């Protein structure tokens, strides 16, 4: 029996909206979520903008001070071990479960698993360790570890929802939630699980975002309207972002049998590493090109069949050029010309959660029949010659889409999604 998997639920806490309707509206109208921010109240910092999360207040290390949008109710037993991005993740997961029409009992049957991706909470880790240093490590917050280290999402969400299937976390920087999604597909295909929740989340604060400024990877453009401009000649770095996205992936027959809403089929994935540099993409994008080919092969799809590529392009000079060359290698050289956009011009770059967020955008595009454009693209880099870079969102129903992700160490992961035949 060939088991396939479909996307049946989505939840969003993102810079461009805190629910599916708002996110869809933003993708269709190219309304960005990037805003001015003064990290730590320090006006001398060069980074002036971020993909901020609205309607939440999570600046305090204490959950007692946090505020979140109406409609979510969480017990203190849940809140006490969360980080700020754990709160985002919980809200996104609540949305996705409701969206998929799943009863809470369905999550505890052992057939449902959970894969998560985040870098942990540098903010809480710093706070907790500072507190422990002050006490000469004689005492510390007993929730400090589970609330802050990488893995905090899977610890907390698995316990909260009573998940009894496969549970784990992925740490491959900006490709992490794409790995999570790919491995979730494998688990469903080989029959280990019938349903997987895939959650990516990150904080947008000084501790998570500004270390990338030390790498000279962040944009210092102070204008929220133009700071994130993937593939543009004037790009000068990425814009940090945060939030959370949850995607529910289900074995197709199970989903259809229960009458679940189906956004798209997840048809295949592939990964390949650059074997080149700890932090910089291969200049020719060789690893990414291999990952794309592997994903296409896994899905049994030719390059010419892909209608749209949601690029990883984060608006860094080196990374976008590398991806453009990889796209030309895979598509242009094969005589194919899919539409290409990076939605990070709207959202900024939310690190570990980028992969699942953009997979969710692809699912929306497939179900609702549109292809998002490239926000802020004025003069494409010459490396993009021959690529069909959309300037505006178009009402065109794609049948097959490719979602790219790349992370530190040269990790590259690609997914193929297909319009569902209901």
């Amino acid at each position, binding site marked *: 029996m060939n088991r396939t998997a479909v996307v049946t639920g989505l939840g969003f806490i993102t810079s461009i909206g805190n629910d599916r309707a708002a996110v869809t509206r933003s993708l269709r109208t190219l309304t960005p979520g990037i805003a001015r921010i003064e990290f730590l109240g320090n006006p001398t910092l060069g980074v002036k903008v971020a993909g901020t999360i609205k309607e939440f207040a999570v600046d305090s290390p204490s959950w*007692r001070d946090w505020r979140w949008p109406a409609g979510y109710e969480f017990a*203190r*037993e849940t809140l*006490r071990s969360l980080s700020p991005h754990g709160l985002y993740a919980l809200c996104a997961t609540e949305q996705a479960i409701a969206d998929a029409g799943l009863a809470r009992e369905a999550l505890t049957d052992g057939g449902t698993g959970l894969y998560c991706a985040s870098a942990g909470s540098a903010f809480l880790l710093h706070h907790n360790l500072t*507190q422990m240093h002050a006490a000469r490590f*004689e*005492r*510390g*917050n*007993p*929730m400090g570890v589970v609330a802050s280290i990488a893995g905090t999402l899977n610890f907390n969400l698995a316990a909260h929802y009573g998940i009894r299937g496969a549970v784990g976390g992925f740490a491959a920087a900006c490709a992490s939630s794409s790995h999570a999604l790919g491995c979730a597909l494998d688990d469903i295909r080989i029959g280990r699980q019938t349903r997987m929740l895939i959650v990516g989340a990150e904080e947008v604060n000084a501790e998570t975002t500004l270390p990338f400024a030390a790498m000279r990877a962040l944009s210092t453009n102070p204008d929220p309207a133009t700071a994130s401009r993937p593939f543009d000649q004037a790009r000068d770095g990425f814009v940090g972002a945060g939030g959370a996205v949850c995607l529910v992936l289900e074995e197709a027959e199970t989903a259809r049998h229960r009458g679940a809403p189906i956004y798209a089929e997840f048809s295949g994935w592939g990964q390949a590493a650059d074997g080149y540099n700890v932090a910089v993409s291969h200049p020719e994008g060789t690893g990414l090109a291999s990952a794309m080919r592997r994903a296409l092969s896994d899905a049994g799809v030719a390059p010419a069949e892909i209608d749209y590529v949601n690029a990883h392009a984060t608006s860094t000079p080196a990374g976008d050029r590398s991806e453009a060359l990889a796209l030309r290698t895979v598509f242009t050289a094969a005589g194919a010309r899919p539409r290409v956009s990076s939605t990070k011009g709207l959202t900024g770059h939310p690190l570990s959660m980028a992969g699942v967020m953009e997979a969710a955008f692809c699912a929306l595009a497939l179900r609702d029949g549109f292809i998002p454009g490239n926000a802020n693209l004025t003069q494409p880099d010459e490396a993009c010659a021959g690529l069909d870079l959309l300037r505006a969102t178009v009402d065109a129903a794609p049948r097959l889409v490719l979602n790219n992700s790349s992370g530190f160490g040269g990790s590259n992961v690609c997914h193929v999604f297909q319009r569902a035949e209901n």
Partner: protein
Amino acid sequence: MSAPVSVPPSAPVVAPISPHAAVETLLRHFPEEVRVAYVRLRDTGDPAAADTLVLAIVADHMPRSEAALTDSAELIADLGFDSVAIAEMVFFLEDLLQVNVSNAEILRVRTVGDLRAFVRLKLASVPRA
């Protein structure tokens, strides 16, 4: 050095609380009478103030918020605490009162009354700054 502590004649000697454990931070979500009790404990060592504080902290941390907070109430059986919730509450007390509590000490506390007595004893045993 802390300022000298004035101890009411009828009260046992209670060590001063470090002035940096602040009403404005750890206790900012508590009712006014609890914050006043903390200041009284800090300034005078009044053990009745310690009781007020302990009861409020147990109430704030206990999973079964509807349970009756009596001296005989057991933290685990009656109030719904698990070991993690107890550890969380103990850390709050440690942080607020600037004391260290060992695992062995925690294990001896079963009821709300045990905890009240333990905190009184702990504060009395802390050397004066």
